[in-house]
């Protein structure tokens, strides 16, 4: 067994044993799907824009990955607060490996959450247009799971306590979500929203998933993939850099 594997295994053991956490983390996306998908669906249809639930599903999957990934960062804060981080940090294992084991665990959990939400959306009536495109959706999801858990880990390494994390939640996570193309189409949106969304890496995740799942794209899949690859690299570098500086 390698240190990376045992740290991944720890995350998985914790996850599997904590049912409330599983339910809590997918409850919110499902609420969004139900309330918005059905609530706004008829208005959306009357406006001639098509099926809103189908439009919404890639956005909600992105939301799941975002929240799950960044909230996983809380895990590092918990470990800091309750001491286990010390045990990991003084081990003769490079910090990069420690981060990797933890982040892979977090990314796996995010992926599973996204999968649950996807299965539920199928149960709610979501139909995607071509099964052959599923691997593309899976690839994008995996990339973003890794990117966003790394992002969460980097943020958690920077803040001291839970209050600090609350601030990150309000000033980074929610704006990232609402100012992406997750909930509304960008085509007819006001110019400033279009610009903000175009600067937001999450929009490209949503867009790539839409391309793969419902054959709609605002930016084009090539641009999506380029932006997502850069995002992944930047997030990983950020996390490694921050995590290496933690003092406990």
């Amino acid at each position, binding site marked *: *067994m390698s240190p990376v594997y045992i740290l991944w295994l*720890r995350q998985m*053991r914790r996850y599997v044993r904590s049912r409330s956490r599983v339910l809590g983390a997918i409850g919110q996306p499902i609420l969004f799907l139900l309330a918005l998908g059905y609530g706004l669906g008829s208005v959306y249809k009357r406006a001639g824009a098509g099926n809103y639930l189908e439009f919404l599903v890639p956005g909600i999957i992105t939301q799941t990955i975002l929240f799950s990934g960044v909230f996983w960062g809380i895990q590092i804060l918990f470990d800091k607060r309750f*001491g*286990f981080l010390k045990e990991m940090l*003084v081990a003769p294992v490079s910090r990069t490996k420690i981060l990797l084991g933890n982040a892979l665990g977090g990314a796996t959990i995010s992926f599973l959450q996204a999968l649950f939400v996807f299965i539920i959306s199928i149960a709610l009536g979501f139909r995607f247009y071509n099964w052959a495109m599923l691997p593309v959706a899976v690839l994008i999801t995996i990339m973003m799971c890794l990117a966003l858990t790394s992002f969460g880990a980097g943020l958690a390494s920077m803040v001291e306590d839970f209050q600090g994390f609350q601030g990150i939640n309000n000033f980074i996570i929610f704006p990232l979500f609402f100012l992406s193309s997750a909930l509304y189409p960008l085509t007819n949106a006001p110019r400033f929203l279009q610009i903000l969304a175009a600067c937001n890496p999450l929009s490209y995740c949503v867009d790539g998933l839409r391309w793969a799942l419902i054959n709609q794209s605002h930016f084009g899949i090539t641009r999506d993939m380029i932006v997502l690859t850069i995002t992944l690299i930047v997030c990983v570098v950020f996390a490694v850099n921050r995590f290496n500086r933690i*003092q*406990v």
Partner: protein
Amino acid sequence: MSESVISAHDVVKTFGDIKAVRSISFDVKAGEIFAFLGPNGAGKSTTISMLTTMLRPTSGKLFLNGHDVTREQDSARKSFGIVFQDPAVEEELTAYENMQMHAVLYHVPKREQAKRIRDLMELVDLWERKDSYVKTYSGGMRRRLEIARGLLHHPKILFLDEPTLGLDTQTRNLLWNYVKKLNDQEHMTIFFTTHYLEEAEAIAQQIAIIDHGEIVARGTAKQLAKQTGTKTLEQAYLKLTGKEVRDETSLSNNGLNMRTATRNRNLR
């Protein structure tokens, strides 16, 4: 008993305006049992945190097993094990899983893992409860688990930060006997902090008394008593740290207070 495995040169640690450690220097020889003795808040844990790569010193140099602690962190980490003052176990896992995780993180050879885990968990009397989640453990049980865990990888240097805090006498004796055995048989260097004088006196070969972030005296228990002109380590300790004086009402003890202060200066 030749080369030093732990050495600190003019180590300073400040947190904002607070000087937690002011210019500490000491050496610990290979195979020695060394105690850091001092009242609460003297800078014992801060020093251990710096030695074990968790905190960076503001200035000064620290070496573990010949490795510069700030520059060669990974090599330094391979040389030691630590039992922390505050709990550092994963509560959501079982005790056995905690031990297993530590064994893997510290590269304990695979074929030895199961046996060592079992031996140590039996030693601290937790084998029966190995599959219980740590969150169901009492404070004393957690402590015992952490001690077993810290000993799992037979490190060259073992740091124990107030290891017996909150333990009953039986477990304390058990722990120290095992630590002495490790020191004796494996030539393991032991560095521990404590504010129990009898532990320092009974276990340690060298004692450094630390107060207000400075080492005020060092030597064997006998030497310390001699240096201070007292009969026991306890008297020496109280004379050096002046706790006895500080805790009493100030007016009537002014003279004594002054004397202690002068003594401290002389010793430095």
